[in-house]
């Protein structure tokens, strides 16, 4: 009898511990549901489509944790001059008429039909099978046609020599660059730096995951809401979408 009691107590404790752990790490799991590190050498899979859902109602005006995290991760510096690179930026919006104010992070929208890739003469701009749009820095000739073609002004041109090479991504003067969706982290099964920073700051405004997986949190969330895709009229199939943004 005492053995039975002890066993049920152990079961209760172990289940309780599991439940506590599940509750404690659930938000992490929700944000981390894509966590499948890709072995080195294995090409990106077309079965995956990485994307982001940005909840503007959770994004605080004046908070730029995501921008700072991106700058740190990629050693971009914090300069915001006209020639400085900005892979992600905070945009403040005020709706005409109602005066409703919004704030949101803006970066490469990782289009399914990226205009930058179509216009690039050398194929330096390319889209991986998993939907991440990148620039091959060894192939970019710096013609800036992709910057002209991008509907979101998401790309920056490196106007001067790069002195700090401590970032995760190779950078070089005279080439074009933009948000890589932290591809180096994603391939390791980690979150993009901006998503992680937003989560750590307690805003939880950016949800990252596999849009192709119906079981992923981002897919489930998108099914339950009506996200807005920027410049939807261009039918680019953007991988980034926004919540709380009306009539864009």
């Amino acid at each position: 009898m005492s053995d039975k009691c002890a066993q049920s107590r152990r079961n209760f404790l172990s289940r309780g511990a599991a439940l506590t752990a599940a509750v404690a790490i659930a938000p992490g799991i929700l944000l981390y549901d894509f966590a499948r590190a890709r072995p080195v050498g294995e090409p990106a899979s077309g079965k995956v489509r990485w994307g982001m859902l940005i909840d503007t109602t959770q994004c605080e005006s004046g908070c730029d944790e995501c921008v700072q995290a991106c700058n740190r991760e990629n050693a971009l510096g914090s300069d915001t001059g006209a020639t400085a690179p900005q892979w992600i930026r905070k945009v403040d919006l005020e709706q005409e008429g109602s005066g409703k104010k919004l704030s949101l992070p803006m970066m490469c929208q990782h289009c399914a039909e990226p205009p930058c890739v179509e216009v690039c003469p050398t194929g330096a701009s390319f889209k991986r099978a998993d939907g991440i749009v990148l620039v091959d820095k060894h192939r970019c000739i710096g013609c800036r046609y992709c910057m002209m073609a991008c509907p979101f002004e998401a790309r920056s041109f490196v106007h001067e020599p790069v002195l700090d090479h401590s970032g995760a991504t190779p950078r070089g003067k005279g080439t074009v660059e933009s948000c890589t969706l932290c591809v180096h982290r994603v391939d390791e099964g980690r979150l993009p730096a901006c998503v992680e920073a937003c989560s750590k700051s307690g805003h939880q405004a950016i949800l990252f995951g596999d849009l192709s997986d119906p079981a992923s949190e981002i897919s489930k969330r998108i099914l339950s809401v009506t996200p807005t895709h920027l410049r939807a009229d261009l039918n680019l199939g953007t991988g980034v979408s926004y919540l709380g943004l009306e009539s864009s």
Partner: protein
Amino acid sequence: MTQPSRSPITVRLTRYFFVLFPGVFLVLAGAWSAFQMEEHGHVITGMNNQVVWGLPHVFAIFLIVSASGILNVASMGSVFGQPVYKARAPLSGLLAIAMLAAGLSVLMLDLGRPDRVVLAATTYNVTSVFAWNVLLYSGLFATVLMYLWTLLDRTMGKWTKPAGILVFVWRFILTSGTGLIFAFLVARQAYGSALLPPMFIVMSFAWGMSVFLLVQSGVLWWHHLPLEPAILKRMKNLLALFVLAVLYLVAIYHMTNLYFSRQAAFERFILLDGGTATLSFWLGYVLLGTLLPIVLLLTPLSARVCNVLMASFFVLIGAFSFLYTFIVGGQEFPLLVFTGYKVHSSFGDGMIASYTPSLYEWLLGLGGLGVAFVITVIGLGLFNFLPRDVVEKASVSG
């Protein structure tokens, strides 16, 4: 003791190098500027992340579009059998090659990585209109050189017409391709219009004819040959027609934009509030580049040769002004991403961008003009590119 008198050949060579010198000076200035941009990056230019194509593109596109238009003279001669134009076909071909080479030089040296330009040929993206243009530009060089060969080598004379037709078709496609570079930019208010390729073609006719008239008069003056008023009259009438056709297409472009309410703010910027871009459009393109030449070309004022040449010069001022407004003004206006919202960010969202070309950009562009000048002068020194009817008439009378 008297100084030995200089031989005629020495005098001619001295004169030749005297003429060549300004062009060489400009080329060296352009090369120095390109080196500085390569060394320090585009941070020394006025360009930034909003205005990514600046003054060098204005020069480059002017040179490339004009190169195509100059071939109109050759086409009128070899394709449509007009003797007056056929006599000028060699000069037209030479100028086309000179201006195309110049335009491509500027375009290439304005790249972020001009050292990698070979990649444009070795790693080819078939969906890129830029990549198509790489083929079209090199193809135009080849076809015009072939055409010049048939003109200069009497044994090849029977191939002149087929080569002329090939050049005619090729330059038509090439100028369409240049217009398409902008027409395919669907997200920008200034571009993304199917009207642009035909507009560029007609602009090439006007600009090319103006360059041709000015260079022809300069070349004849240099060789002490007369400029036939009757021939000039025919060419100036054609120029007036082209200038009017450009005005028509530019008006249609803006009027269609004005009709679309989503384009209204952009049109207001270009036509009213755009500062330099607006001034450049109204004063440079409309007044000096269109209305003044029309008056000079279609009134009794056109009886004087200098007025026709002045009209040609002002058409070129209009060309630069139009391209400045089109390229720079088109980028200064912010992209429309969030309809119905006032927008602000650290990256210039919702704000008019600013752009002031730096000395380096001016020198690079002027260096391009120098390249065209030097190639033309060297070509004229090595081959017989003078208008044949003028030379024959002068030799008969002289």
